[in-house]
């Protein structure tokens, strides 16, 4: 997670907040993504074990989040 992004878990999935723009992004991710701690170093957004067939949708979601600057790719 970039330093400028906060994220928290909500009933629908994850709620992202970009501190640079104060914009919110509601992500209907269900239980597919695990939220990192609110603050602190090395915050990582984790992909939870997926049901069969959910992989492509979650990949698209991650690409969208990366395009918005809400996540950055990390080495495994």
């Amino acid at each position, binding site marked *: 997670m970039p330093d400028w992004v*906060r994220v*928290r878990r*909500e*009933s*629908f999935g994850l*709620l992202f*907040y970009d*501190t*640079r723009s*104060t914009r*919110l*992004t*509601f*992500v*209907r991710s269900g239980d597919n993504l695990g939220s990192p701690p*609110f*603050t602190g170093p090395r915050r990582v957004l984790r992909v939870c074990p997926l049901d069969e067939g959910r992989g492509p949708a979650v990949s698209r*979601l991650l690409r*969208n989040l990366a395009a918005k600057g809400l996540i950055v790719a990390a080495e495994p």
Partner: protein
Amino acid sequence: MLPSLSNTRLRAPVNVTWEITETCNLRCTHCLAAELWAQRRGELDLGQCRALIDELARMEVFQVNFGGGEPFLRDDFLDILRYAHSRGITTCVSTNGTVLNDALVDELLRMAPVYLQVSLDGAHVETNDVIRGRGTFTRIIAGIELLSERAYPDFSLNMVVTRLNVGEIADFDRLARHYGAKTRLSRFRPSGAGCGTWKDYRLTRDQLLELSAFLGAHPEILTGDSFFALTPDSRRELGLNMCGAAKMTCAVAPDGSVYPCAFLCHRDFLAGNVTAEPLSAIFRYSPVLERFRELEVETCRACDRFAVCHGGCPAVARFLTQSMGLPDPECLRTAVSAKEVA
């Protein structure tokens, strides 16, 4: 990707408006908080403020919007800002700009980004000074110049739009750009001192329509979702398009009292006090806030603009009609005519 916000219940506010002090050096004729501050109910001390910030961090509240009063008149305010940043909370300060000086601006620049909203109620001295007090335009501009000279990265000039200054919006926007600031327009509401000046300051129907058209043509202008009752379709994607009180936000008064929003700091809407119970419990379980979350303006459901405003601002409806279940009286569809206002 977007769930329907009107049907979504968040487990905590996204942002909290915190009126951190009762103290102010100005007496603005539209001040939303004038009535409350006159009661002098006291302020949270620094320890209580830190405890509330800890609670906000536990709740994972993203942003605190500090107001007052004039926040920078509180001696320990910079300590409060620093502590909020240390807990990962973004801060925005609404200031009247008259107390900004070199040392203060330099200190703010050293902190994590602090969004500053400087209040100025006209593009011209004559207009602003009628509302904010004689001599204030010059003093506010001096504060703005300090921010501009240092290329302060995140500041806006905020004007509460009234009948006195609505004709100056374009000039105001040019003034803000001149100083490297964003333009922010806020809605005038009949709250606090605004109850007394409502009749003279409220916009006529024609002015409301002109303002709506102006906002539609200028998506870059910030409104803090003030104007959703007259949001043009072209701004639909820019904001919540609904009242966020008790759903996305709530307000904390200087003494720790909690209300649905800063415009409803009235005893009828007191949800609790953070000195008596945690904010998280107040937000989740207060009957006052729950009533707000369940509020539906049924008479608006058939309107073709319902998706854009969801009935508008309950605070304006409450103060003008004594009911929150009625449509926003300044809705584009129902606004009274200029003749009726006069």
